[in-house]
């Protein structure tokens, strides 16, 4: 590409964030390929991050305060980064790129949980979803660090530092909204009650995760349940809110019984890429 057309900066325009330990591009160029099972596991984790990033991206320019536009964009960017690592790694098993997997899989081929597909709702509901997901993700990645799969361990190392900040962000807002005004307390409680029904799906053991967990490659979701629920209950009570007692909503196990929202999310996300199959962007 020509570098002589008078730009003040010659920096690459594809810088994503400062201090990236690994990049999706670097991952794609690695020799080691994921096995079929590891790839299917990486899709489960990657699809969660991708869907949530897509949801959070909608807040940019719509947040309650300019600092929150920045913060939510930051979180969305981190999650998109995780998705890119995981999808890139998954794709190595099938000679597919991250974009093949993100843009050219159909609805029933995604593995995301209903929680991350759930609508943003108001800011309280978004914070409720962030709270649950970031505590879950932190527990997950802190264990995945010890994975015998080096690539998964490296991804976990990178992601862990970021989801730690996401936890902090969600917890601080939980406190503010729980203890702020009567209205914020009510909305935060409603937000928690709304998304809480989808929490159990995060802890369901499905294949190939169970089998990979035995081999020390993956983290068994059910093993995270008590820790995450205890942490969430403590912090919700600390914020003066009530821990929802809703039973888990029936009917989802990441095997194709997905939310009504997924189709709309993908319709929007995939539309342009699918209008121009084979094109480079």
């Amino acid at each position, binding site marked *: *590409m*020509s570098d002589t*057309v*008078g*730009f*003040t*900066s010659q*920096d690459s*325009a*594809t*810088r*994503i*964030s400062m201090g990236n330990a690994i990049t*999706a591009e670097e991952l794609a160029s690695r020799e080691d390929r994921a096995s079929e099972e590891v790839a299917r596991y990486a899709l489960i984790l990657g699809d969660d991050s*991708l869907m949530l990033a*897509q949801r959070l*991206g*909608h807040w*940019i*320019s*719509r*947040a*309650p*305060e*300019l600092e*929150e*536009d*920045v913060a939510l*964009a*930051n979180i*969305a*960017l981190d999650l*998109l*980064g995780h*998705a*890119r690592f995981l*999808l890139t790694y998954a794709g190595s098993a099938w000679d597919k790129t*991250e974009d093949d997997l*993100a*843009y050219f899989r159909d609805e029933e081929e995604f593995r995301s949980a209903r929680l991350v597909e759930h609508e943003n709702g*108001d*800011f309280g509901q978004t914070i409720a979803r962030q709270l649950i997901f970031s505590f879950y993700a932190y527990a997950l990645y802190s264990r995945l660090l010890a994975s015998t799969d080096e690539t998964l361990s490296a991804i976990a190392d990178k992601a862990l530092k970021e989801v730690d900040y996401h936890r902090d962000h969600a917890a601080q807002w939980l*406190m*503010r*909204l729980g*203890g*702020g*005004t009567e*209205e*914020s307390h009510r*909305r935060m409680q409603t937000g928690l009650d709304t998304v809480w029904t989808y929490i159990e799906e995060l802890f369901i053991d499905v294949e190939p995760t169970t089998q990979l967990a035995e081999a020390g490659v993956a983290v068994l979701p059910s093993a995270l349940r008590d820790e995450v629920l205890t942490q969430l209950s403590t912090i919700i009570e600390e914020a003066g809110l009530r821990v929802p007692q809703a039973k888990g909503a029936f009917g989802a196990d990441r095997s194709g019984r997905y939310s009504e929202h997924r189709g709309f999310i993908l319709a*929007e*996300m995939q*539309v*342009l*890429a699918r209008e*121009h199959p084979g*094109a*480079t*962007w």
Partner: protein
Amino acid sequence: MSAQKPHLQAVEPDAAQVTEDARVAADQARVGWERFQEIIADDKRIEPRDWMPDDYRKTLVRQVSQHAHSEIIGMQPEGNWISRAPSLKRKSVLMAKVQDEAGHGLYLYSAAETLGTSRDETYEQLYTGKAKYSSIFNYPARTWADVGAVGWLVDGAAITNQVPLCRASYGPYGRAMVRVCKEESFHQRQGWEILYTLSHGTQAQKQMAQDAVDRFYGPALQMFGPPDAESPNSQQSMAWNIKRFSNDVLRQRFVDMIVPQAEALGLTLPDPDLKWNEERGHYDYGELDWDEFFSVVKGDGPLNHQRLAHYRAARDNGAWVREAAAAYADKQAAAQQDAALLSA
């Protein structure tokens, strides 16, 4: 100050004191004015605590807040494409870019605060439609190529305008612009790269790129403001070292920059009068549609209403969150005070 509340009663002002106060104030203003003139003559920086003429302050508040508002409204046309970006890498870069714009808004609102204008006050002016922002953002970003054209042409015009502003006489503004310019040059390059990829892609992609450039070229040139003869505030701004070059000088500089860039893209610029003038050492360009420009500025552009409605909806929907954060902070402060009293 006495701990006791003073009795509220009308006090006859002491005429001698009033005269004395006025004399002191006039003295301070005279010394301040001389110092201000000196700083400007030496091409040094005015800082927030320095005395400055009211008009200088007003001019800066207007310019800095308009710039901040442009960053905020400017998040919309591109933000509109985050969910549909055609690759994950592009989605990532676009998100980072729109996030940068929010960051620029923050630096600039802070610079305006150092001039004594609170963020809430500045927000209010945008909310009520009293404040202006760059009218280019009232045009739609319809296609993915528009994201490229906005980066290349709109951010490119912005940089051309802003690089000299890094030397603006008002310190906080100049310093904010240094950071803004670094990021903007990255934005311009990503826009150009989007267009480069499209113009070297399929026929449909190339057409998409050409169409976007055709639509954004004229409005981008108008971002420098009206021709010099019709730009009433420019002279004073230049005398104050806020503005360093006139609108037409900057516009010419931009045209001279983008012509070779367009050639490298393999795209044409929609101006039949565009040609190299050997004598001037610059590109000549055709007359711009200033009627359209002024009607967009006055509120009749394609999306003025939509942009403002989007901004207002975000502010309205977030009001309860801001109230909660303020109430929570008050409660925390009160609790800390109580704790301090108890331990005393």
